[in-house]
């Protein structure tokens, strides 16, 4: 049944996916099996997004299905072991900017590609990035921004990370809206990612994963 669940989620059949998950839960399937199926499906969704057959509607619906399925198995969730991750990423939309569509796509794609993502949300002050780097110890930091004001906020964030003595602990990537390699250079980041796939490749490269 878990194969069917994987396929139902990956093919965007929400009603069927939820029915299967409920049936599995009621039939005594271990939560781990249900969640593993959901995660496998997320990987396929990410793959299809990467190939250009899936777009934002599919990412959003996949995320919704995952949330609902997690709710279905929740009573047992506490017993689940943490799955193995390739690396850690702190991501957020920089100070002054509250746009999050692009950042959320990058978060989703990093997650399905095996990264542990700590998403700080929008309008994130530089100091909050610094604290998150200290607490969470990521290898990669992603700075997102849509408006032209984000250029200076990105620069300010990189400077704050430097001032905190953490610059050589992380690789920093920037992206979103009007951001390009010029902005990367201005901000003092390590790379610019044109889209979510570029972000994933950069993160993989930086943590030494193929």
């Amino acid at each position: 049944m878990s194969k069917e669940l994987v396929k139902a989620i990956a093919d965007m059949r929400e009603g069927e996916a939820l029915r299967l998950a409920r049936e599995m839960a009621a039939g005594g399937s271990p939560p781990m099996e249900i969640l593993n199926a959901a995660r496998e499906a997320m990987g396929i969704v990410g793959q299809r997004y990467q190939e250009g057959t899936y777009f934002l509607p599919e990412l959003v619906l996949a995320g919704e299905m995952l949330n609902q399925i997690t709710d279905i198995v929740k009573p047992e969730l506490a017993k689940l072991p943490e799955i193995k991750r390739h690396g850690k990423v702190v991501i957020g939309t920089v100070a002054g900017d509250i746009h999050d569509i692009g950042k959320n796509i990058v978060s989703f794609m990093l997650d399905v590609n095996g990264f542990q993502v700590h998403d700080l949300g929008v309008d994130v002050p530089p100091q909050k990035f610094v604290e998150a780097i200290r607490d969470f110890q990521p290898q990669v930091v992603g700075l997102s921004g849509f408006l032209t004001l984000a250029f200076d906020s990105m620069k300010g964030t990189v400077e704050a990370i430097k001032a905190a003595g953490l610059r050589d602990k992380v690789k920093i990537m920037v992206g979103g809206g009007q951001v390009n390699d010029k902005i990367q250079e201005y901000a003092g980041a390590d790379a610019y990612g044109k889209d979510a796939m570029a972000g994933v490749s950069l993160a993989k490269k930086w943590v030494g994963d193929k």
Partner: protein
Amino acid sequence: MEKQLSPDEKLEALWQGVLAPKDPQGNPLQFQSPEAKKAYQERILRFKDAIQMNKLPDRVPVTIFPSMFPWTSAGMTVQEAMYDYAKCAAAFKKFILDFEPDVQWLAVAPGPGKFYEILDYKLYSWPGHGVSPEHSYQCNEGEYMKANEYDALIQDPTGFFLNVYLPRVFGALGGFQMLPFFPGILEMYGVALNFIPFGLPPVQNTFKALFEAGGEALKWIGTVGSVDGELASLGFPALLGGFTKAPFDVIGDTLRGTKEVMLDIYRQPDKLIKAMEALTPLMIKMGVGSAQMTGHPLIFVPLHKGADGFLSDEQFKKFYWPTLKEVLLGLIEGGCVPLPAAEGGYSSRLDVVKDLPKGKTLWMIDLTDMGDVKKTLGKNACLLGNVPSALLNLGTPQEVKDYVKRLIDVAGRDGGLIVCNGAFFDQAKPENVKAMVDATKEYGVYN
């Protein structure tokens, strides 16, 4: 019976109207010099010829279509521009006189801060209300229309806006929830019952807020709007007649929100399409009505959720384009020039949107490769753009000049190009913005 004007005649009447501007009393506008009058008319014709693609203008037109740059570059905060109307107007006037673009896009972008406060506008955060003084206002996306409210919107869009939507996005308009059902006001028998809500305190408080808000809006436009006449008399025309939106964006931006509209594509596609169809004539009416009211032909249509990466080709063709196309054709039919702004990348959409009637639309292009656009959409439509924000912020004047020169070579040699920034920007180096204008004037001359 009055003779019906054809779409072309309606549009030509608007062009002739802007060519012969009037002062607020309705008399012919007094230009400050014969040179100003000549420059004013030349600038309009330059735009008109570029858009209509019948003949080459004297040179490639150039304009600056910013968001907060006119004020940030004057050393003001966005907050000041939103709350000090006189300062806002003065800075905008200086901006146009300093940079000398062919067409100006009005001093209305900051809008009246006090007005938003009076109505307790919840849809946006603005300086002092969730955003710092120096930053621009930004939209608070939310589910302002619930998943189960499509039928209400479809059956009666205006009623839905009045009774449901507006009270959600304006805290002070709560009284609208109690408004009567207006199409039920039919006969003397029982007619007074419909008016009971107007006697109730919540409705009366809402109307009090409206009177105050209306007064504030009037005060604001009286100040920032007066710049238009002054600038016209100095030779700088405005052509923007209003705005409207793609029905998909109406729902996806401010009614359902991005996440929800994406889910609706899967969960209730038929209702989404029906709702967009119900909104289409209203979006046409909005644009055409506002062009007629202002007397200006260009109707701005910002495009958001149809950009590259948001939807698949099939989804774009099924959900985004049909009603947008109808809106664009409806605007043309109503005698306007639609100005869709293809924000972000539009490479994957070019083949779908390219077959519009020739010389009837003006497309603002952001990150899409201008060579590709020229070969597709650009065969039928004049292009406006696409100097990047990053370049205007961080480049040198020489780099900007080089970019403009390449842009003209790639997309402007046979007309159909207006040089402009590609995206709306708040910050830039003034010398780079100036270089964009100067380079166009220098390299853009047609022989």
